């Protein structure tokens, strides 16, 4: 981790009509950092991820990615600038196999044009890269089954694999362990720890064991506003956070 800021928001605000659901949040993610965003339901966590990834545009404030202002950029432009994300609810390609989905992700990343996939694989390493990625995420045995036939946990892992296929510099994970057992959640985060490399990771998570076990810094949101920011120890000790979120 170093002090270079890879993702930064200033005064980020989102309002629908007169109703502000996200209020002037300043946030910074450092290079190589693993940063958790926590908060009770309705705190604005998913809104924050949508604002950063471009699926929602802010009413006010700025988003900078790798030092570049991307506040008005499309999701695709942000992806091209180094952003990757997963979704709270599996957002996959049900009729494609994991192999096809990862090949698709790699083709989009590399802007591949080829008369056929068959010809493409003969002249590039793309298929080997897809196979290696699926192997690393433990999906090799399921690589050629349709995604809709995979177990839920495998689909969660595929969400992660698709995001990682893009080699993002900043990875946003919206409740990656949602719906998984505690053991599966820990396994997923361990997998991520070993594979993330120098990717900066911002993740939303409800499981405090995962948050405090994995994050280097924690941001706490409440009612669409920033409540606190700090190291896991600082957050644990923060009386405002304890009262508003941890309940004691």
């Amino acid at each position, binding site marked *: 981790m170093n002090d270079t800021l890879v993702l930064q928001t200033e005064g980020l605000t989102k309002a629908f009509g007169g109703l502000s659901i996200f209020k002037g949040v300043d946030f910074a993610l450092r290079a190589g950092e693993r940063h958790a965003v926590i908060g009770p339901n309705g705190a604005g966590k998913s809104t924050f991820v949508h604002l950063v*990834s471009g*699926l929602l545009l802010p009413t006010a404030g700025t988003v900078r990615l790798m030092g570049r202002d991307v506040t008005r950029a*499309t*999701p*695709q432009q942000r*992806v*091209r600038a180094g952003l*990757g*994300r997963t*979704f709270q609810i599996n*957002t*996959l*390609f*049900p*009729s*494609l*196999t994991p*192999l*096809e*989905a990862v*090949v*698709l*992700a790699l*083709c*989009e*990343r590399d802007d*591949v*044009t*080829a*008369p*056929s*996939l*068959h010809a*493409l*694989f003969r002249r590039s390493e793309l*298929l080997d890269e*897809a*196979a290696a990625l699926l192997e690393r995420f433990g999906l090799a*045995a*399921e*690589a*050629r*089954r*349709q995604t809709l036939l995979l177990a839920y946990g495998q689909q969660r892992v595929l969400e992660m694999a*698709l*995001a990682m296929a*893009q080699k993002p510099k900043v990875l946003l994970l919206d409740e990656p362990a949602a719906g998984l057992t505690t053991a599966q959640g820990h396994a997923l985060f361990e997998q991520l720890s070993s594979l993330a490399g120098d990717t900066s990771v911002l993740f939303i998570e409800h499981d405090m064991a995962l948050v405090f076990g994995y994050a280097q810094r924690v941001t706490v949101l409440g009612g669409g506003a920033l409540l606190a920011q700090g190291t896991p120890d600082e957050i644990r000790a923060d009386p405002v956070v304890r009262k508003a979120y941890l309940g004691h």
Partner: protein
Amino acid sequence: MSPHHRFFADQARWSGWEIAFWLAWLVAFFLPNANLALLTQILVWGLFAVSMDLLLGYRGLASFGQAAFFGIGAYAAGVLGKLGWTEPVSGLVISAVVAGLAGMAAGRVVRGLHGVALLMVTLGLNSLLYDFVQRSTELTGGDDGLPGVTIAPVLGLFRFDMAGRTGYLYTLLCCFVVMLLLRALLHSPFGLALRGARDNARRMQMLGAPIDRDLTLVMGLSAAVAGLAGALLTQTTQFVAPEALSFQRSADVLVILVIGGAGMLYGGFIGALAFIFLRDLFAAINPIYWYFWIGLMLVLTVSFFRRGLLPALVALKDSLRRPAGRGTTSASTQPAAEEVVR
């Protein structure tokens, strides 16, 4: 070749059924009592339904306006023939390009629309064009159709004869070439991107995919194929009327595709075979109320073979091939019906 590479290679490989399909059309030409005019119509409708399949089956977009592009191609070929550009192959290409450009323009209009909104806008565009063709009597001949369309012999050698022999082979060859190209395209990264956007446009956005550009391209491609089918109809009959771009035609092509099976490339041809043969049969029974039976067929097909006739045939073939008692597929094997969808 690795198993992964073989997986993709197998998808692109010609199956025995596919080869038999094309050979059957060729054999039909030599049958003594074959109704070549009817078979040509089936090929034209089949190709038109394939154009719809590109949108609905491979990109997940339903349209009530596909006949607009069929009509543009049909009228382009007709106007060219009337103005003296009688060479058929170049006329066909020009008509497809004109329809394709119109499709790309429509693609920009419908960008971001889904479901009912998309159906209504495509229906609206179809209606606008239909009225324009009816009113532009000097250019199109209005209600009476375009008279005086002349088409020269194919390659300067084969005249379009009354028995429809040249027309049939010409249409068959064009369909084959178009299907070769589409087949290759659908097994390319672009084809994979189309299926990805059909399954989940939001995920495609977050892969950085240019889904709007791809939508414009596929609309253009689909319209070009529809236009080519329309031009084939004009060239083989040497006539074109506003019916070519009627709403009824847009509805019929959807019916044909749903009966045949969307997302399977050949479903359009299977649907056209069933639809046109049965239409002729039912019209012989009752020339006015034949659509009653088509409606019944649609209800029964969708009720019993939800995905259409071709997937049902593939599933039947699969179950016949599988020995009794081995009813399950292995973990790494796709159901055959799904494989054909690719």
